[in-house]
């Protein structure tokens, strides 16, 4: 019995979407959580582990990086430049902001996150990520800016290796999108005659 599973990217998308919906996000935002997980996994980042972290935080009442990300993308994806946009402090698994900042970078050219102590991360319009020395497990005084400058890079898909404990956690949340069995649901589900024709 292995303690981790290699997921197809479509499995990861589906799992994170359902878990996010199970954690109380709207279907629309939950779908974007699944899309963001795919984006991160393609760059070799532990998207499932981070999702388990931010979903747990959100269940505890915290704001999630995906909700902040969709708000930013909605607001700024049509802009020409960003100037000193403050991000909320205390976001768990803030890397989930990056896919949404990529959406903005496609419009503005290059998005950077800086903190008082230095560079946090930058995302190019091509979706290339550079993590800076000021990166932390939670956002703290982070400021968004844009700079011009593009570079392109082809990325090969990476299949995420996810521990069974993280999958169990996410599947537990996913089950909140399902409906417990009832006599009616079983009766209506399909074949009841013999299948041996």
């Amino acid at each position, binding site marked *: 019995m292995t303690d981790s599973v290699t997921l197809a990217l479509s499995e990861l998308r589906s799992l994170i979407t359902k878990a996010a919906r199970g954690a109380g996000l709207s279907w629309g935002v939950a779908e974007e959580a699944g899309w963001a997980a795919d984006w991160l996994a393609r760059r070799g980042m532990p998207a499932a582990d981070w999702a388990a972290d931010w979903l747990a935080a959100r269940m505890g009442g915290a704001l999630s990086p995906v909700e902040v990300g*969709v708000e930013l993308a909605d*607001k700024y994806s049509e802009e020409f430049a960003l100037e000193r946009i403050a991000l909320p402090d205390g976001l768990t698994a803030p890397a989930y902001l990056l896919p949404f900042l990529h959406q903005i970078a496609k419009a503005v050219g290059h998005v950077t996150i800086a903190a008082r102590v230095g560079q946090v991360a930058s995302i190019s319009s091509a979706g290339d990520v550079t993590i800076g020395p000021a990166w932390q497990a939670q956002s703290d005084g982070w400021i968004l800016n844009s700079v011009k400058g593009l570079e392109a890079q082809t990325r090969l898909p990476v299949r995420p290796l996810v521990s069974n404990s993280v999958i169990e956690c996410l599947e537990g949340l996913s089950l909140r999108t*399902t409906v417990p069995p009832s006599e009616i649901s079983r009766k209506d589900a399909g074949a009841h005659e013999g*299948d041996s*024709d």
Partner: protein
Amino acid sequence: MSVAEQTPMLPEQALRDPDEVMRLSRMGSAHPMRLSFLRVLLRRVEREGWRFDRPLWEVDDHGVGRAVYRARGPERTYCLVAFAHDLPDEMRSDRVIATAWDATFALVDGEPTAADLDRLARNVPLQEAGRISARELSLSRANRSVRLFAHVVDRLSRGQQPDAAEIDAVGYLMRTTAVYGSGKFGAADREDICDRPELKAPFQAEMLSVWLTRAFTVDIAEHMARVRGGAAATRLGQDLRRRLGVGNSTGLGMAPFLVRHPALLNSWMTARETALARVRALTRVTPTALADLHNALSAAQANVALWHSAHPAQMAKLVDLRSDLARIEAHIGAGWNQQTPLPWNELWLWGAAQLSEEGQESLLALLLEPHGAVVDDLEDSLDADETTAFSIDGAMTVGRLKTLIAEDYGWIDQFDLADPAQSARFWYVSEEKLEPRLGDRHAEAGHEREQPLGIAQAVWALLQALTGRPDDEGLARFLLAQPEHRHTVRRIQTLHGLPFAEIHDNLLAQGMLPIDILRCKLAFFGATRFDPRSDRWVRISLFQGMPYPDEVTI
């Protein structure tokens, strides 16, 4: 007859109106046709001269073992790995709850190594409880038709051919109960393989898997006949073999697909409707085309003669279809009015005025059949890029969104969506089996966990929410306040300009028949003998009457 002579001399006739095409009753009358996915596969393997063989057959006297079926195309090789099992009758079930099957399969990308075969042997027989890898393109299983399988083995073992009537009554030796692809259970993701020409059209890996499975179903029956009859046993005759397809048992699980993949549905429907429009624009009825039309009609009549169903809705449709095919035969037999500028259009308009929906959709399939030179290139447009549909245009105004709704979703106005009967159902996923089901909102618990498939209601609810908001307000602001509409807003934005993306019907209405959705999807697969066993699960046949891999190998 050259392609140039067949090419339309007038602009394509306008496509049919989505308000007509995308109604459930008409989608539920769809017929397989030239652009159906299994036909696309068969044309390709014949055109490109694919070679097929069976490099491994290790099956014992109990019918247990493994086999490999190899398909070699011009650039790549694919192999179906089949595992044959000895399944007690009492364990045989087509339901997703089953845990054992008569045979299980995986389609491998390339040729499997010995290590691959051992890995697959540990996982494929478990189906949903196992794992496959990016080396595999599909995972599937099949159960025998016990009665026909026994009859065929018995006859062949005694050196006799099976009874044709017995074969026709069932139509398959085995039926698949699920064919998983596109990343399911660890299989290769669709986006990683869709740039291969042979896998660009939808479900080509799954169709190849089923086609090779069909060869296996005959091979395993002949094997068991040899075990029983020894030297006295014979092989299945070519004609009888052709009459066997692969059965398929399909339930509600397939229904949400068309709602969740609207851009893909638009591609399928647009290709088919464009094909019809091109044929309607042709100016001549050539002798060859006329002969092909007669042949296609004869084949359709032969098929419908063997097409049985005990479901009241389908029985009524079959009565209509038999009657309509006879009327079509009489009409084209009389030569119809071919001396008009657009004779095929004339025939189509006659059918649209005279035939039932079932007959009209059958006529559509018949009209495409003689015109491969005019329509087959549309198989290149059956796919859709679904990976770009995530960003929302937050700068779009509320007023613009209302305009899009008015342009694209006017069809929801035909329903009184405030009436509880219009939202009597809800789609959900069962906790027990993780399969889609349809519940009664007013009698069952769980509707708060509803899947977002009620598009008409969702758009209606969005319109209510937009009421009173200023037209110049940006959607970013609106969605921040009401994120529950995000799913619907994205759908409206991304599907604008895709006229055949939405089913123009209410999927939550009391009288909605899920089998209509299944029929449409299965017709695009190329399925025949659609046989509903209730309003939510069906049996069909695939590849019946079509060649086998060893018949197209040069």
